């Protein structure tokens, strides 16, 4: 028996068909409910990130660092992470453009975009963390001496670099934990489809 012979068997299988009433009911109950659940989950994430941001600002005030540069820097830091996180979630959850692309192209586009955002994470996070540390040192020095400068430049830059490297390692670990599985799944799908193409 060959595949061609099975065409008839496939086509003769009793068709499954929902009535319009059933279809409307599935859409009302399942589709709408699932969308609500997805939106609720995104909202929970957003609230969590807002709370973290508020926490950062509070700590700054508690420590008595009233510099608007530090606060702005922290907010920028959180905002960038928040944007990247949402963009990746958005891309992998529901922005698969299959209207203009075939399945293989759509998957490749998502892989490229997610990789790009992960690279941004890894470049921006250590830079901002290092930068914030230097700003913190400059501010502390200003409160102590009244001069806007680094107290021990070589030492401070060394610590900033170490902070950057540490944050880079941490970012790598966190992004791999958060998005690694999804990225691996997408790559495997692409590999299966493209059979031998490199990406």
């Amino acid at each position, binding site marked *: *028996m060959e595949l061609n012979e099975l065409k008839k*068997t496939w086509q003769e299988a009793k068709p499954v068909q929902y009535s319009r009433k059933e279809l409307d009911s599935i*859409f009302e109950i*399942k*589709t709408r409910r699932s*969308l609500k659940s997805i939106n609720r989950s995104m909202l929970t994430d957003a609230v969590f990130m807002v709370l973290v941001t508020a926490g950062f600002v509070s700590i700054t005030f508690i420590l008595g660092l009233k510099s608007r540069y530090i606060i702005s820097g922290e907010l920028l830091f959180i905002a960038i992470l928040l944007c990247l996180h949402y963009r990746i979630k958005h891309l992998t959850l529901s922005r698969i453009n299959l209207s203009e692309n075939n*399945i293989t192209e*759509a998957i490749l586009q998502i892989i490229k975009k997610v990789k790009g955002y992960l690279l941004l994470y890894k470049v921006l996070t250590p830079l901002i963390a290092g930068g914030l540390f230097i700003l913190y040192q400059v501010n502390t020095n200003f409160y102590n001496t009244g001069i806007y400068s680094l107290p021990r430049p070589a030492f401070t830059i060394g610590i900033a670099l170490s902070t950057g490297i540490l944050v880079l390692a941490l970012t790598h670990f966190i992004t791999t934990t958060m998005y690694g599985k999804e990225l691996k799944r997408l790559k495997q799908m692409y590999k299966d489809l493209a059979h031998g193409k490199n990406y």
Partner: protein
Amino acid sequence: MKQEEKEFLDQIDLHQNIVHKVCRMYTNNKDDHDDLFQEILLQLWQAYPRFKGNSKLTTWMYRVALYTAISRNKKKQRLVSESIDSKAYEYYENHDPYRYENLRMAISTLSETDKALVMLYLEEKPYKEIADIMGLTETNVGVRLNRVKKKLKEILVIR
């Protein structure tokens, strides 16, 4: 119900056989079939506002449905392979249950992407359309289908 929702459901109602066929290829019982149908419907609804009509509506539906099925089955691969049972052809009643069982058994050995190719082939879609849906060249479709046919022949000959 909003006008856009009504239009969408009209289209789904008209072409629901596409979604059912994908569900049939990727599931083995009624519960899984219904679950996958709902998941595909959700993906179609989310993607509907971005459908610009650059391709045929049915081509777009195949793409979304197959993508959803392939990615879902990757996640549930183990569960699906464990759930192959006699309910498969009880639900998809057929004139020739023996042949249908053979077909399902053979299909269950294929990779998720090969299942998509076989489904489109069984639906007698031209290579050009298969290539357009999957993102392969027509030659590649031919080569891969030949490979799948050979593999299935070996399995089906044993039966």
